[in-house]
């Protein structure tokens, strides 16, 4: 099969490209102390929160944008970005789906996410973030009965200040890195989840983010806390409308798992990747980190990354508690001129800690993709174990696939294994599928899906379906 044909198959129009026409209240571009004060004031935040933001801002001013990633993009003008936008009636937030702006619901429909259906049928509570402000939160009652708090981070700052003070910034400190510091200064919204001791969250929690207003940076802040023996599964899914300007996204996600707690965090990321010439597209600089504080706690990251022009993202686990477990399962697909530098860090501190990393990268078109990972075994992490499997698939001869795994092992009782392969789609596999009457396009999809199977099976059911759809697979889960 000719390379050009192969490229045709993976070059697909971005299906989620449309703009919702909802008036936004947006501050003029630029960032200084007054912008931060404006955001904090808009949110009705207490003074300590403003001070926290300003502290982050001052540290950010002293920091430099990281340059070590295998990424190439023009410098970002932080003064050209608008740091706040909200739907027009923030004080008049809809309390049920009936009150939600029909245009927003329509948008979700177009994305193939029938919100109410999904919510009702699948029992998923949805905290929909639209232009940085929570628009609707459902299933509050059921969660409330279980003692689970699931609300916007803004509400949490107002309603649960003690929890925020206790946990915010303890996993990702304000000055952890350039983008985390920026986020800490200007974050506008995001989710807060608190699952009390012994509670298993009765439903999967889900939030769909969108970036909509042009030139608006999106700075979510998510904090999830599971007390002892608590469990939660959290889904984050993202798509964005087609835009020409690059949009900056710098989210921070912090997870805290106490003794025997389990947090599963799944992401499907499908933001606008830019056009074939690399024009437009989201710049995605994300800091995600989980802290396994308690013994036998477990944090699992699963991500399917298909969007964004630039991805800089390393969901990590700090394995502090004895016998705690960290997991990272990732599928990343890049095409066109997308660039992704992604991977994970597993920091083993406690005795008997374990981590698993499975990373599958598919590079097509003129895209470049890097796996960058760190496995660090500290001197006290007796008997720690890591297994890493890291495979790259190349489609076409103009893409690049790179692997940069760091392993720092300071304990002789540790066992660390890393395997990586890079190859292209097998011609003989394609021929076999086609000789069974399956079109070339479907054959590529099937083989790519098979390549990603180890990761997809880690996704919650609804997400797995979406993920496969994202890779344009026509096979349905009817059989099996």
């Amino acid at each position: 099969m000719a390379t050009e044909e192969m490229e045709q198959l993976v070059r697909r129009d971005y299906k989620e490209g449309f703009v919702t026409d909802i008036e936004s209240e947006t501050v003029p571009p630029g960032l200084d102390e007054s912008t931060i004060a404006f955001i904090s004031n808009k949110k009705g935040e207490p003074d300590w929160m403003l001070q926290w933001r300003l502290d982050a801002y001052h540290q950010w001013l002293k920091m430099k944008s990281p340059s070590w990633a295998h990424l190439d993009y023009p410098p970002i003008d932080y003064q050209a970005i608008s740091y706040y936008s909200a739907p027009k009636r923030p004080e008049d937030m809809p309390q049920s789906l009936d009150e939600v702006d029909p245009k927003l619901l329509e948008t979700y429909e177009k994305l193939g996410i029938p919100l109410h259906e999904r919510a009702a049928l699948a029992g998923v509570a949805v905290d929909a973030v639209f232009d940085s402000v929570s628009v609707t939160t459902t299933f509050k009652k059921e969660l409330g009965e279980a003692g689970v708090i699931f609300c916007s981070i803004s509400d949490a700052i107002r309603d649960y200040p003690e929890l925020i003070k206790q946990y915010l910034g303890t996993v990702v400190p304000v000055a952890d890195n350039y983008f985390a510091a920026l986020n800490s200064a200007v974050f506008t919204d995001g989710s807060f989840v608190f699952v009390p001791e012994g509670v298993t969250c009765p439903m999967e929690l889900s939030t769909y983010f969108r970036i909509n207003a042009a030139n608006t940076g999106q700075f979510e802040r998510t904090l999830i806390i599971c007390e002892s023996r608590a469990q939660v599964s959290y889904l984050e899914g993202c798509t964005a409308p087609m835009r020409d300007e690059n949009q900056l996204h710098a989210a921070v996600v912090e997870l805290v798992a106490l003794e025997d707690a389990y947090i599963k965090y799944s992401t499907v990321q499908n933001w606008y990747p830019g056009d074939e010439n690399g024009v437009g597209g989201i710049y995605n600089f994300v800091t995600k980190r989980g802290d396994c504080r308690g013994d036998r706690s477990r944090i699992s990251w699963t991500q399917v990354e298909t969007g964004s022009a630039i991805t800089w993202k390393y969901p990590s686990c700090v394995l502090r508690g004895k016998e705690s477990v960290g997991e990272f399962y990732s599928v990343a697909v890049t095409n066109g001129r997308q660039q992704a530098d992604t991977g994970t860090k597993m920091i083993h501190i406690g005795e008997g800690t374990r981590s698993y990393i499975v990373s599958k990268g598919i590079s097509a078109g003129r895209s470049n993709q890097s796996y960058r990972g760190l496995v660090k075994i500290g001197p006290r992490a007796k008997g720690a174990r890591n297994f890493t499997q890291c495979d790259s698939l190349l489609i076409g001869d103009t893409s690049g696939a790179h692997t940069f795994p760091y392993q720092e092992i300071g304990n002789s009782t540790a066992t660390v294994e890393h395997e990586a392969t890079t190859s292209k789609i097998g011609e003989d596999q394609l021929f076999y599928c086609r000789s069974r009457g399956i079109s070339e396009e479907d054959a590529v999809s099937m083989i790519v899906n098979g390549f990603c199977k180890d990761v997809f099976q880690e996704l919650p059911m609804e997400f797995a379906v979406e993920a496969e759809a994202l890779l344009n697979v026509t096979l349905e889960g009817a059989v099996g």
Partner: protein
Amino acid sequence: MLEVKDLHVTVEKKEILKGLNLTIKAGEVHAIMGPNGAGKSTLSAVIAGKEGYEVTSGSITFEGQDVLEMEIEERAQAGLLLGFQYPVEIPGVKNIYLLKAALNAQRAARGEGDMPAPEFMKLVKEKIAQMQMDPSFLQRAVNEGFSGGEKKRNEILQMLVLQPKLAMLDEIDSGLDIDAMRVVADGVNSLRDSKRAILLVTHYQRLLDYIVPDKVHVLMDGRIVKSGDAELAKELEVQGYEDIVEEPAA
């Protein structure tokens, strides 16, 4: 049904088929025999559309359509199916998915909708029982970790589900013990009917004790040098290829 005329094929600049002629009618079972390197596998690969084979002259038509102009999958959708000598492994892709995708692709080509899931499952269960395979095979990745015999059974299973008009089986008997051979042969025989044709490519006569062909062709050095009925295969067994050829072509 299938008409191969004066087919010349080169592989990496070397001519493998040198003017091959073959006509297969509906309802017939043909066997092509010949020594190693005669071009047996080349013929079935060219009909299925494998890349790397250059047709320098000649034609292949299937039910009046020019096969050489068809895409690989179009050939399969039209009912031309190749059973491989060495089936490839496809990690992560379950057998059941491949069967479903292939069947529905064929139906779509005929303008039919997808087969409903229950009906599909019923069909597959029936066929897998016929092939005496464990249903767990359906959940395993295509051919991954299968033994040689399991791979061959799997090829026949696909034939039974996809019901091709012309099934081409390339050395389907290699690597099979007697019991497996019987199962495979029974599977192939169950495909025989007046509307369907089967092309067997084989090195040994053994298979033809179980699947009795209507026509036997001897392929040597890129040409069919002798044709006959099932008796010819038995003669080959006794006399060997060289002697058969040295007889003046009658």
